[in-house]
């Protein structure tokens, strides 16, 4: 028996919407970043699924690039969080409003 492709796609959709809920509910900037990583990974799962079912490796090459971009994003984002923490002594995104005037 073969697993239908919809199972993987629905699994990826569930992971993506969990990530959306995490970004909107959580107030800790680091956890918001981790939810964004969750959403990136669910997109990766979709790409690998189609790549495997179509027998075409280009989807997996795209996943490789997504991983590189996620690493760059994590490095810059966490550096921004550290810089903010030095200035404001908090990572709660409700209390960070230095762009407001």
């Amino acid at each position: 028996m073969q697993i239908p492709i919809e199972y993987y796609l629905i699994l990826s959709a569930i992971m993506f919407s969990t990530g959306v809920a995490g970004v909107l509910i959580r107030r800790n900037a680091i956890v918001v970043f981790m939810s964004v990583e969750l959403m990136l990974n669910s997109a990766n799962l979709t790409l690998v699924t189609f790549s495997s079912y179509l027998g075409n490796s280009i989807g997996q090459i795209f996943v490789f690039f997504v991983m590189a971009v996620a690493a760059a994003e994590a490095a810059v984002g966490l550096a921004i969080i550290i810089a903010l923490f030095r200035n404001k002594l908090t990572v709660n995104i409700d209390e960070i409003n230095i762009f407001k005037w």
Partner: protein
Amino acid sequence: MNLEVILFAIFALVCISSSILMVTRRNPVISALFLVVNFASLAGLYLTLNAQFIAVAQVIVYAGAIMVFFLFVIMLINPAKEKKFLEYKPQLKIFALVIAFLVFVQIAYIIFIAHPSNDVTRDVAQSVKAGTVEQIGRQLFTNYVLPVEAVGYLLLSAAIGALVLAKKKFQ
């Protein structure tokens, strides 16, 4: 019930439950550890899809490098615990859950309308061949050599940017 279905069920269950636990735990360290579990089960799912190289890269890059980085930053700044879920404003909770549910319904609607399993039948030999390091490496260094170089510069500039941002107080 063959092995493929059982493995898919186990990994999918671990994947969904760890992602929900990651979003709901109040302590960020525990959230990060559940995210590691989630990435590991995703690597297992990639193996059931015959994507060997991506599965290994997932464990090394995500579960290894990126999550160690996250844990390092969490332990460095030691943030205070968040409020309990029930203590949030009800508008915020309802808004977030409705938006997440709408996103899920949209994606599921598209999947069931498009019904991809009509057009796609899995040729296992073909998909094993597509996921090998040999095949991906050949594609990366012939047809996709320019994007590989661009990604290299992207990572370099990200490293420099992170150093500049984290070096001293920005005014």
